[in-house]
């Protein structure tokens, strides 16, 4: 108190600037305090940014520790140890930027000249899509980044079909009954976690919104919900179909919505296609006149949703009736056998959900009267990361379809990835009165080719997101897939595939070792940088410019990032790095062409990049700002461009079009792919799982339920808010909270399950799946479904050169499959649950006895007295 100078960081003499967080891919507004000495000493949420209302999650609060991390790469470096391996010290040697660029360009150029398909990119900075699209400049569609499949390989294409949008969220401002299935939305994860948990807390406490969480674990969402419905892992689709069964059986349905706003009345023939006339117009059935009419016939009195009819000599049924037929076998009692959710619970929730949806209610917003449907079913990775991921997604959407809440106030909403400019519409009319489906939310996919032009077989997923796990399947089975090239150069930027990829590490290590040259641009050492030949260190997020907005649930706009300090080290922006490489590789013109298209700059021709010019991060950010609202970067320094989402874009933007209750396009895609595979005699065509392509969700079990019986439990992986995305473990402030949380420091079992396995908390175990194994220590909690073994993301790291990242005994992803059997043939989504068996060990295996493991750290923290530090 005798010191006249403030001791608290936010009050020290200095300045505040406005910027954007990058501790995850989403874009919370921040204000950053910089002292007179140039030290960044406090980051808070920007109270003017409607997206996060001045709030920040624990990770956003920890950004300073990423900036000042002494493990950061401080200058370009080249590897001097020719031996590569997970424990090999690369023996980095500092080099000049010029030498680093020269070596990198020379090595990439060799492959570019020989066969551009030999280049394998993993460019994963979600806030910089301008880097992500770089390989398109040389026509390369390879993909080694995990982004799609480890989040929403099937989720994004389904949202593209149902909402013509990238993601989805419940409308928190009006929702009164919120089902969370396998997602932490509003509590711990998914879209803009800090912002969404603020809105959801307000809805829960101020408005009494009821939350029901369906999940195998007592997650944060489950703990805060009025009701936790424990479910056996990997059976969520069946739970949703059970709900649908009850709703249809008991007429808990918004029939008006289905008739007016969806294709549910369209007649489907025996082949599954809609019944069309010679002009390709689709038939419906008028139940008053009892005859078929074309869908847009003005004389239609009442559209039939149920029944079996005959048109042009063909037996046909409305799409809704087809769904009813599937639901016949989905009684809650039948589904209980799969999900373990008591049938009475399913029936009750279906009735509560329908009652809360308040069918018939309307609301006026901005002069527009719309249906008000304040009940919504939300879900994400935990529920949809299935082999039959597309069908899982579709089943969850069906619960929403039945109460007519798609994009309705209070309902289940499509969320765009990036609107680019303020008036851009994300929906467009398609054929026969339906909305145009838009499954390719992340840009173009490669056309069909055999032999394949991509190493991960993206040539055969016309609806999908890249399935990078198949790189390993192809690598380990070289002849089988007819691939005529071997990737030999990896270009990696802000991506850690060796951490994120599923399939055993031993396999991935062989894959990495087969590369002739690996260049990585990142800021800190990771599992992947360990294998690099050249490190091109990039600026941290507090040293660079950017402009972005990533899938904001309730807002729109652009979030500007600006440097808070000069770069601490001899680093460059990602833009500088990739422009320099582009120039040296002779692809500068092509890259600028790709950027003009992919970034939407061609919408405002004055913003288009000139073919032969290199641009800085600030210049690119400036253009994105101008594209949004015609304001330059200086305007963004003083103003927040984030506003509430315009209601005409948020609520029923497709008004007048019909939504895809029945996704007929599945059959088109299936049959076109089949035909091309036949024409080209693709040798693995008979292994392709054509049944995955279904216009309606079915009850067929995922293969994870058909593994040998000795694997008696379901292994599942989870994160909480401290561990969302990357940028977590290794940050001392994150470590400080994560390794004090009982759910993040052990392999979790229900105590009864542990007892029946002869295990108790503290036992050292080996966990094996049919595909791989890990080691760890058992913890028990009543908050786990008895069939589940839960593994936190905090236990997924292996020894690397970052001293703050402790080894955890192997990575859960080692136990996941990487084959076609466990890959959704529609979207490329791999199965993310595995069957496991547990063996008790007397001691840690060799290799885990030395070095700092998570468990050493936890023991140290739990020591009495002055323990608690690491």
């Amino acid at each position, binding site marked *: 108190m005798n010191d006249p100078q403030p001791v608290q*960081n936010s009050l020290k003499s200095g300045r505040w600037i406005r910027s954007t967080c990058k501790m995850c891919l989403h874009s919370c507004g921040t204000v950053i305090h910089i002292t007179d000495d140039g030290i960044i000493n406090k980051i808070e949420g920007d109270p003017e940014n409607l997206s996060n209302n001045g709030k920040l999650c624990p990770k956003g609060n920890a950004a300073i520790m990423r900036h*000042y991390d002494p493990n950061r790469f401080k200058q370009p470096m080249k590897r001097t140890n020719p031996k590569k391996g997970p424990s090999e010290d690369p023996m980095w040697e500092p080099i000049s930027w010029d030498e680093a660029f020269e070596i990198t360009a020379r090595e990439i150029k060799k492959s570019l000249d020989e066969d551009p398909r030999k280049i394998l990119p993993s460019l994963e900075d979600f806030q910089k899509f301008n880097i992500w699209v770089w390989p398109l400049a040389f026509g390369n569609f390879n993909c080694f980044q995990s982004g799609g499949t480890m989040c929403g390989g099937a989720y994004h294409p389904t949202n593209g079909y149902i909402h013509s949008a990238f993601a989805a969220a419940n409308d928190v401002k009006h929702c009164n009954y919120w089902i969370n299935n396998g997602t932490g939305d509003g509590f711990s994860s998914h879209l803009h976690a800090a912002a969404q948990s*603020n809105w959801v807390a307000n809805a829960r*406490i101020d408005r009494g919104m009821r939350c029901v969480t369906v999940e195998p674990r007592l997650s*944060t969402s489950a703990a805060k919900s009025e009701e*936790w419905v424990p479910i056996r892992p990997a059976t969520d689709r069946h739970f949703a179909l059970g709900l649908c069964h009850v709703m249809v059986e008991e007429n808990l349905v918004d029939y008006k919505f289905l008739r007016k706003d969806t294709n549910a009345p369209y007649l489907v023939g025996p082949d599954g296609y809609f019944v069309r006339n010679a002009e390709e117009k689709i038939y419906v059935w008028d139940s008053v006149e009892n005859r078929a009419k074309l869908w847009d016939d003005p004389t239609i009195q009442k559209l039939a949703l149920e029944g079996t009819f005959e048109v042009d000599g063909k037996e046909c049924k409305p799409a809704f009736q087809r769904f009813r037929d599937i639901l016949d076998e989905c009684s809650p009692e039948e589904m209980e056998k799969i999900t373990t959710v008591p049938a009475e619970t399913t029936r009750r929730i279906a009735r509560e959900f329908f009652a809360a949806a308040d069918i018939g209610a309307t609301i006026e917003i901005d002069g527009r009267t719309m249906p008000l449907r304040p009940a919504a079913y939300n879900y994400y990775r935990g529920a949809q990361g299935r082999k039959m991921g597309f069908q899982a997604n579709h089943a969850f959407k069906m619960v929403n379809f039945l109460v007519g809440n798609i994009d309705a106030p209070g309902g289940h909403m499509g969320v765009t990835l990036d609107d680019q400019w303020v008036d851009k519409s994300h929906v467009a009319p398609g054929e026969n009165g339906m909305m145009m489906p838009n499954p390719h939310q992340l840009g173009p996919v490669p056309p069909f080719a055999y032999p394949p032009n991509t190493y991960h077989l993206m040539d055969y997923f016309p609806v999908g997101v890249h399935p990078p796990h198949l790189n390993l399947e192809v690598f380990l089975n070289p002849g089988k897939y007819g691939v005529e090239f071997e990737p030999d150069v990896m270009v990696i930027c802000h991506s850690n595939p060796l951490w994120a990829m599923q399939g055993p590490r031993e396999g991935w290590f062989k894959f990495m070792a087969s590369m002739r040259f690996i260049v990585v641009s990142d800021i800190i050492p990771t599992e992947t940088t360990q294998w690099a030949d050249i490190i091109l260190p990039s600026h941290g997020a507090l040293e660079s410019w950017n402009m972005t907005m990533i899938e904001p649930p309730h807002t729109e706009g652009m979030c500007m990032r600006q440097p808070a300090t000069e770069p601490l080290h001899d680093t460059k922006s990602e833009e500088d790095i990739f422009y320099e490489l582009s120039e040296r590789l002779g692809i500068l013109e092509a890259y600028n062409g790709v950027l003009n298209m992919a970034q939407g700059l061609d919408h405002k021709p004055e913003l288009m990049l000139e073919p032969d010019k290199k641009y800085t991060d600030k210049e690119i950010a400036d253009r994105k700002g101008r594209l949004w609202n015609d304001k330059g970067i200086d305007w963004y320094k003083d103003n927040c461009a984030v506003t509430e989402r315009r209601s005409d874009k948020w609520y029923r933007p497709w008004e007048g079009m019909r939504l895809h209750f029945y996704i007929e396009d599945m059959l088109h895609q299936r049959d076109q792919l089949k035909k091309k595979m036949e024409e080209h005699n693709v040798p693995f065509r008979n292994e392709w799982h054509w049944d995955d392509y279904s216009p309606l969700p079915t009850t067929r079990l995922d293969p994870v339920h058909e593994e040998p019986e000795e694997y008696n439990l379901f292994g599942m992986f989870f994160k909480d808010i401290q561990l969302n995305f990357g940028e977590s473990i290794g940050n001392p402030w994150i470590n*400080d909270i994560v390794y004090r949380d009982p759910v993040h420091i052990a392999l979790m079992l229900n105590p009864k399950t542990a007892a029946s396995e002869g295990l108790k908390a503290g036992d050292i175990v080996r966990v094996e799946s049919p595909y791989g194994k890990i080691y760890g220590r058992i913890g028990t909690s009543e908050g786990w479904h008895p069939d589940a073994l839960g593994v936190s993301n905090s236990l997924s790291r292996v020894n690397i050169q970052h001293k703050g990242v402790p080894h955890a005994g192997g990575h859960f992803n080692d136990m996941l499959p990487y084959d076609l059997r466990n890959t959704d043939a529609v979207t490329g989504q791999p199965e993310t649950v595995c069957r496991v068996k547990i063996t008790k060990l007397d001691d840690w295996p060799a290799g885990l006895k030395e070095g700092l493991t998570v468990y050493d750290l936890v023991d140290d923290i739990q020591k009495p007295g002055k323990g608690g530090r690491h």
Partner: protein
Amino acid sequence: MARYGMVFDLRRCIGCNACVIGCKQENSLPDGMFFTRTLSEEYGVYPAVGRVYIPTLCNQCEDAPCEKVCPSGATYTRDDGIVMVDADLCIGCSSCAVACPYDQRSQVDKDLFEHGLFGTDELTPFEKDGYQRFVPGTIVKCDFCSERVDAGLDPACVVTCPTDARIFGDLDDPDSKVSELIRERNGKPPMPELKTRPKVFYID
């Protein structure tokens, strides 16, 4: 003069620990040290099981056991009710830390400032700047970010809390949000049987 207190809304708290890290940022806390923590407690038997997240910090007791036992007068209560430690007077005897029934006081050992947050035996510029506030050997604790309060701001943990589970204000003002919440939702102090008269209240 206001009498400051805090309310923790247990229905809102999601246990995310943003407050804990926000506090570390604001106060440059060394590794393993906390002015506030969020505890996580499970109860019940599967499937009727729940978990409650419990934020904690110095309760700024009206009848503070720490202040009573302090032999040097280092611990004192400001007029606005915030319990302070004057590092210049603190002799580091730890009596207060032992007396605090809520385990909210820590001693800052010299070695805390040597290993650094990254355990590299070097301090980051953030640490070099921030650690100047600490006098090794003395006792530290949460003081509701008293400097921020003096500047008319809420404590750092309050402003960052994603769910607004921490509410700060004047307990003597019947119209303040904290008074309203304590009144309407039956706010309870921690361990009232100890008669320490905390200025922190829990509502659920």
